[in-house]
């Protein structure tokens, strides 16, 4: 069990898979995803390695055709395609940006 992940998950207000196209958000933490079963810890690690870490700014840049899946996001200047299952592991908060 990865307790570090669970503690991040206290009252997640918003998850990445709930964001709209064009939204600019900041990562607050990662939570577990039962869909990945025993692989979940590994998926969390890989997400972190790719830069989905607390504080990292994200931009949602697009969605796939069916069920808005997968979604494309930009993190640290690099674009990634994520499925909703992975995106649901990522807790985010909107970035207050008066200029937007």
């Amino acid at each position, binding site marked *: 069990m990865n307790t570090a992940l669970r503690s991040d998950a206290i009252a997640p207000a918003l998850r990445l898979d709930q964001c709209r196209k064009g939204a600019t958000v900041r990562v607050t933490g990662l939570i577990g995803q039962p869909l990945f079963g025993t692989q979940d810890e590994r998926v969390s690690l890989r997400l972190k*390695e790719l830069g989905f870490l607390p504080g990292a700014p994200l931009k949602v840049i697009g969605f796939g055709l069916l069920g808005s899946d997968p979604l494309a996001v930009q993190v640290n200047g690099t674009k990634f395609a994520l499925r909703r299952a992975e995106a649901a592991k990522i807790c985010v908060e909107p970035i207050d940006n008066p200029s937007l």
Partner: protein
Amino acid sequence: MSTPIRFALIGNPNCGKTSLFNRLTGARAKVANYPGVTVERRSGMVTGLTQPAELLDLPGTYSLFVTSPDEQVARDVILGQLAGERRPDLLIAVIDACNLRLGLRLVMELKSLNRPMILALNQMDEAKRRGISINTAALSQAIGIPIIETVAVNSQGVAELRKVLDGYAQQPAAPEGEQTLTLSDRQESVEALYAEIESIISQHVIQPAHLPRWQDRLDSLVMHPLLGLVVLFSILLVIFQAVFAWANPVVDLIDAGVIGLGGLVGAVLPDGILKDFIVDGLIAGVGGVLVFLPQIIILFFFILVLEDTGYLTRAAFLLDRPMRGLGLSGRSFIPLLSSFACAVPGIMATRTIADPRERFITIMVAPLMTCSARLPVYALIIAAFIPEQTVWGFFNLQGLTLFALYFAGVASAALIAWLMRRRASGREEFPLLLELPTYRWPMAYHLLMGLRERAWIFIRRVGTIILALSIVLWFLATFPGAPADATLPAIDYSFAGQLGHFMQPLFAPLGFNWQMCIALIPAMGAREVAVSALATVYAVGEESIDVALGSALAASWSLPVAYAYLAWFVYAPQCISTIAVVKRETNSAKATTFFTIYLFALAYFAAWATYQIASAIVG
């Protein structure tokens, strides 16, 4: 002599390791703009050093804590865990300067291995163009690793890298050794590592906040859920149109040349066995295949352009959801697309797929993507049977037929993947996590090298395997000669004739005549040989050798038979190399047997159904 020192290139996917490898060793390994082009280790000797030194090119990886078979290769080589492989003496970490954070993270992880390492900061030209300014000296000091700035595609900085490597090459190679690493060995948390990287970057690098705007604009078009699909299908349709419409004049020219050469040689040589051999065996057989070189080149031109721009991963993004319904994913898209060139590299490219079940299904259906070796067979039959006319204003009917044949393969692959997935429900899902590289204008150098390579592979196949099979077939079609009291054409008494007549009853329900049956056997070696085999069999059988093969076929096959033969080739005769690579990649005799039998059965059934239905319609 002592063993040469070993260098290994390691870095994130798509950061330019293979470009550097090509520059340093003079090799011509494939490079393109998508993650996962290199899926196995590759080795070469570094040129221009005073001491011999070996360089390893490895598949890209984001981390030593790997998730897919190609990443596993990179990690095993680095740690010296690959059986019979001495671990590298020096790691050359390659970082894309436009993607510093991701690259530096892997470097910091590698640093904890405490191995000699230098860093090649690649794609510096593009970084400067984007306004990224890196204080290399200070960065080098901060991370404690020597840094060399490189631009792999222009060989800039490669000379300096070579000089540094020459210094290391003077040292003796290290003895055997192995390092182990498990998930729990992760000493520092990812968070702490990134915090360190953030602080280093903020001190020594100035980065603009945004990518160039045109990149984002392009993405909002090609990744649009609806417009993106329109773009994708338009691109595919244009490719198939081009393969026919653009190639035809050149094909006709080569065709006329081959026939002319046959006539010329026929006129010069005295009648006899030598003339028959050269005209019917060599010129008809080999020339019959060589004719299709322009089409192969046009097909590869488009594939190379798509690979080099970075568009492929966007197509994978668009198709991920539809493909998931079939038990595949966007990750299977690129291996499947590669299979349009040839199923062998396509099946190897499945190593980038993390999910074993998905990888298995992708391997099983990859040969249903029409490989370029089938193109000559399709092109020959289409040109002979489908009228060259324009439909709906601008579509070439022959091009449309070709598109339909490719589509039949894709649709069948979808159906079979879906059937296979249904047998394995309730499994764990795997993440997609696919990096979408920045767009790049396709480089003329890559295109020319790629086309040259492809043309050369095709010509070499024509000159070796196809030539050899044509010669064998000519002998089989010529000997033994007809008996004195022969009532049938001489070829009916030859070995090929006998074999064809022996096989024919098995294929009679499909409408195949014995000549077609003969052509199926050498096609197992290389599918194009079906064309040269038909050319030889018909050239030996016919009295006049000055008719093009297409006309000979049009005269002797009915339309339903031609369709049935096309249907057969959509599915089957997997060449031996495909079966061999399936065996190697699945490492299972059972899977390989299943693969072989199911494709043959499908080919037989499809050809039978096509023949019966087409016969009923044509009447």
